[in-house]
């Protein structure tokens, strides 16, 4: 049976995401997809969904949602004090939803982005192989008041395990970002290399799904490169000496030197950082 989530209040910035859009980088289409894949996998695992079922990615100030029919949900990632009707609920557990239930969020406690999974995933439009929202590719780019998102209602008791799976949320608080040397790393002077290894960097307020800028200014003598490929997790060094960590919605090519490349885990940890948080690069080779 078709059912919908109605957006009563959109919150700060929420989108529908899955693992992203594959096969279209050659047309300049970003990969997109959830910023934090660990949380996506966890929330879907709890509901025994397909690993890539579409979820809602919620940034800091969550929305207020009304469900039109029974289902089950699970929330993972950042803890944004979720409430079902008037009762506080926890992250990482199955929550039963009845017709007319209202889900809202309160104070952001830790982490940057929270993930709301629903039984069988959100059934919003699929464009170029993915349900991930991206400007001009999908019809929507963020939640708006009054919007209605489709899902499959499930009256019958689908068996969902309540076996105690231990979820490790420690990564949400980690400051250590695992990185590999980027293509232009070797061109950096030794002092800058060791600076990248040893210093702490703070997350700038200039951060979104495309890129997260770091506040510190480095002494940079590297000029631009011939425009080349970039990926989520590529760290660029601008002519002005700022480090920019490219994230899931990043462009497919870029002209700034690529000094570091985050590991998958590093990207997931970075996705949970907010302005003012500190990070340290752990260089692997």
């Amino acid at each position, binding site marked *: 049976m078709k059912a919908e989530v109605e957006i009563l209040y959109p919150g700060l910035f929420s989108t529908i995401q899955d693992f992203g859009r594959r*096969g279209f980088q050659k047309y*300049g*289409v970003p990969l997109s997809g959830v910023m934090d894949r660990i949380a996506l996998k966890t929330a879907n695992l709890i509901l025994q969904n397909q690993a890539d079922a579409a979820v809602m990615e919620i940034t800091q100030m969550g929305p207020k949602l009304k469900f039109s029919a029974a289902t089950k949900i699970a929330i993972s990632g950042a803890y944004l004090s979720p409430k079902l009707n008037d009762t506080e609920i926890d992250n990482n557990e199955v929550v039963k939803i009845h017709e007319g239930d209202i889900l809202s969020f309160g104070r952001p406690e830790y982490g940057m982005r929270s993930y709301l999974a629903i039984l069988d995933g959100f059934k919003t439009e699929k464009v170029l192989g993915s349900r991930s929202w991206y400007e001009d590719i999908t019809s929507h780019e963020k939640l708006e008041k009054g919007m209605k998102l489709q899902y499959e209602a499930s009256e019958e008791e689908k068996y969902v395990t309540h076996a105690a799976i231990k979820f490790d949320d420690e990564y949400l608080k980690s400051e250590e970002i695992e990185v590999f040397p980027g293509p232009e790393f070797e061109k950096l002077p030794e002092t800058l290399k060791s600076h990248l290894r040893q210093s702490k960097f703070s997350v700038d307020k200039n951060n979104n799904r495309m890129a997260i800028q770091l506040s510190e200014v480095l002494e940079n003598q590297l000029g631009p490169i011939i425009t*080349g490929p970039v990926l989520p997790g590529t760290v660029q060094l601008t002519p002005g000496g700022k480090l920019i960590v490219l994230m899931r919605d990043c462009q497919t090519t870029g002209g700034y030197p690529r000094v570091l*490349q985050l590991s998958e885990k590093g990207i997931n940890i970075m996705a949970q950082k907010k302005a003012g948080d500190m990070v340290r690069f752990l260089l692997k080779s």
Partner: protein
Amino acid sequence: MGERGILIEFEPEISERLLEKLLFYKNKLEELYTEVNVEIINTYNSLLISYMFSIENLYDEVSAVKELLSEAKIGKINNRQIFRLPVCYDEEFGWDLELIAEEKNLSKEEIIKLHTRPFYTVYFTGFLPGFLYLGGLDEKLQISRKNQPRMKIEKGAVGIGENQTGIYPKSSPGGWQILGNCPVQLFNKNNDPPCEISAGDKVKFYSVSKAELKEISAQVSEGNFQLKKENYEG
């Protein structure tokens, strides 16, 4: 590049010879990877093989790629096409025509002539969905970007930035000098493939009047504009 990508870099130059080589290897790699979920893109002097998930055995992957790249005989790329794109160089769209004319000591007619003459080479698509990186701009038209980028450049705007020329596939902020508008939709998410023009193809601009632009725009929005194209024998 990290756990999900293998970056292959060639000599740092922008040339058709290198593009031929890249596209040849790209085809070869695509044949090698038919069984695996990877995506390969090229830029001016790089190929990036990106994996959906982490690479399991990097050593094996890299040696397979190296073996393939050791093949010395580069074949010609087939199926290259020339696309003829209409551009209206009227002052209504050519916001910076006057500035270019003044700085380069050219008349507007000369600018249009110089801009429509070359067969531009499509090196790759990047920056925005459907944005073509074109090579072959006449030196006389090379001009630096605006010091202060404009907040909004119209969809279809045709611009110049240093030695590059290109078309904004959607309205966005930008620093290029704008000389006209191309009403053709270069990226359409409902088409398969969403972008008809690809790396290795050629683009040639032709000048149209405001009336013609209007007509073409109407055809584009009704979905019955036929892009002029022909095969290209390099």
